[in-house]
């Protein structure tokens, strides 16, 4: 079977298992599973508005973070800290947006936006990269596992947002725990009448770029070789695997930071606590289900966005807490990695190795 078709089929199968587990769990805890799932379907695909204003805007951070996690995992860096990197990007974007938006207001609407938005997004990228630089240094210089350091930095990021919105970046009246709204010049343009913003085009462009990079460049080959077998890559391929590890994790942080910046600049227009409903963790499921392939990440990002938009519909119309959707995500992750472990064993056995 064609590998692309096979990975698509296994993704659909994993999704099916995930939804079946959700239905079972809901039935066991006394909910009406049929009503819940149909509310979920309606929440995701019930109307053009659901697709344009609920699903697609959510897909933007998920695709960006999923691309980043795919990049990190392929480079052998287990980045569990996209949530923190997302928040770092969101804080930087808010700060730069409020600051620069004020300076550029004299330029006229179009020019102000052309100058401000790129600066906002660039700030987010840099912040996410700096946030990821900490675990890179901790790992390469001190040997601290990036799994632990990226995880812990998530909590630092959350606490930092909480401080910002009650301190330096709090709105001018000092009543609510959120920032002022970004000026129009700092906002990504939206499709009129919807919440869909230009970040989607950016995410798609980056997905194609990363795919081409992985397929046709030497650096992309070094990345894949390092992730597949770091020892062989270093010994046989003379690849500097520490460098690949560091760059992959930095790139991953940059993409998660960009996701945070695009969320503030395109969707919420303000910083507040719990800005991310767990995008950093969902991003892991997005990347794994796509088997770390950038093009497939577009599809899985859309799939999970539909799932989460559907979950909100489920909470609204069937009274099932949206948080239950985490069970579906966890099931999908598990189906994918168990299948991968099985493939690895089969391949090993075929190669005559000890199992």
């Amino acid at each position, binding site marked *: 079977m064609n590998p692309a078709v096979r990975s698509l089929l296994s993704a659909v199968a994993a999704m099916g298992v995930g939804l079946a587990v959700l239905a079972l*769990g*809901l039935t066991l*805890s*006394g*909910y009406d599973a049929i009503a819940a799932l149909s509310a979920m379907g309606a929440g995701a695909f019930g109307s053009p508005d659901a697709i344009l204003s609920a699903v697609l805007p959510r897909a933007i951070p998920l695709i960006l973070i999923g691309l980043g996690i795919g990049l990190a995992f392929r480079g052998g860096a*287990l980045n*569990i800290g996209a949530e923190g990197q997302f928040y770092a990007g969101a804080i930087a974007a808010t700060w730069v947006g409020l600051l620069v938006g004020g300076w550029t207001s004299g330029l006229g609407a179009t020019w102000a936006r052309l100058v401000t938005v790129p600066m906002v997004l660039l700030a987010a990228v840099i912040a996410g990269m700096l946030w990821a630089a*900490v675990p890179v240094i*901790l790992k390469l*210089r*001190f*040997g*601290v*596992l990036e*799994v*632990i*350091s990226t*995880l*812990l*930095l*998530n*909590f*630092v990021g959350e*606490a*930092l947002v*909480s*401080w910002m919105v*009650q*301190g330096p970046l709090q709105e001018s009246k000092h009543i609510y725990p959120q920032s002022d709204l970004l000026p129009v010049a700092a906002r990504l343009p939206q499709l009129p009448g919807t919440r869909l913003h230009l970040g989607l085009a950016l995410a798609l462009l980056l997905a194609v770029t990363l795919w081409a990079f992985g397929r046709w460049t030497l650096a992309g080959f070094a990345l894949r070789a390092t992730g597949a077998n770091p020892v062989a890559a270093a010994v046989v391929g003379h690849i500097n695997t520490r460098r690949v590890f560091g760059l992959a994790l930095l790139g991953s942080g940059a993409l998660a930071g960009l996701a945070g910046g695009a969320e503030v600049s395109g969707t919420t227009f303000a910083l507040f606590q719990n800005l991310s409903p767990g995008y950093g*963790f969902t991003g*892991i499921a997005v990347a*794994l289900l796509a088997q770390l392939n950038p093009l497939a990440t577009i599809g899985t990002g859309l799939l999970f966005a539909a799932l989460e938009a559907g979950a909100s519909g489920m909470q609204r119309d069937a*009274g*099932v*807490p949206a*948080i*239950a*959707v*985490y*069970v*579906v*995500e*966890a*099931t999908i*992750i*598990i189906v994918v*990695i*168990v299948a*991968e*472990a*099985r493939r690895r*064993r089969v391949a090993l056995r075929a190669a005559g190795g000890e199992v």
Partner: protein
Amino acid sequence: MNESLLTAFLTAAVRVATPLLLAALGETVSERGGVINLGIEGAMLAGALGAALGATAGGPWAGVLAAIAGGLLVSAAFAAIAIGADADQIITGTAMTLASIGLTGAIYRSAYGTAGVGLSLPTLPVVVVPGLSDIPVVGPAFFQQSALTYIAYLLVPVLWWSLFRTRFGLTLRASGESAEHARAAGVRVTRVRVIGVLIGGALAGLAGASLVLAQVGTFAEKMTAGRGFIAIAIVVLGSWHPGRVFGAALFFGAAMALQFLLQSFLLGVPYQVFLLLPYLLTLLVLAGVVGQVRAPAGLGKG
């Protein structure tokens, strides 16, 4: 600083350290067998919900038992996937934590309704140890705690002895150093590792119980807030030895309790600074110690 303030600070430090200590001791056992379980964050959360449900139904001790059951359930699922099916341990652990967040959230709302706010649970009483609690300053801090804290103290020598002086401990450590060599020597590696992970899960559940029944007195979604992950850092800091893990857990309890103390002194400093202090300290300390300690050689490998 006067004496009673110091005692109050230390008492808070020990109370906050108890769930960290319980979870870290459990993870020590698991990691000595070569299995790193990021799912103990989820096991602790399941333990916390179990404690709430059990305590509502049959008082605090029923809560403790239900908490252990909750932790065991999550770690059994982890063991089936990461050891049974040989899937990546880090990602399986992350998935177990995600699943626990979803399940506990859904069960909590179906059990206590969407309101659920202000849920007040029967808690474990403070047990005063006669004699020891009369020691000045530290006596009341260490010996006027709930029974779960004393269980945690007892577990330190018990686990040290089990790990380093029993046959089970030897086979567990052998499996953690090299599964291949242990297997060649006739050790049933899979079985030993599963037992290690289950002990870890039971203790993570107990940690959830101490959080709910001896510290907070209520349940909230995602209430463990990364304590399971901090416990994993504590294991590294304690170089996989129960005694040193005890010291490391107290250190973090103190770092977390510091916010109560400093907030009354440093009025101008925003409280979030104290919230992120324990996490930053963890990173700093890890950077300092990792070079000096040695992890089980087979940690994280199938």
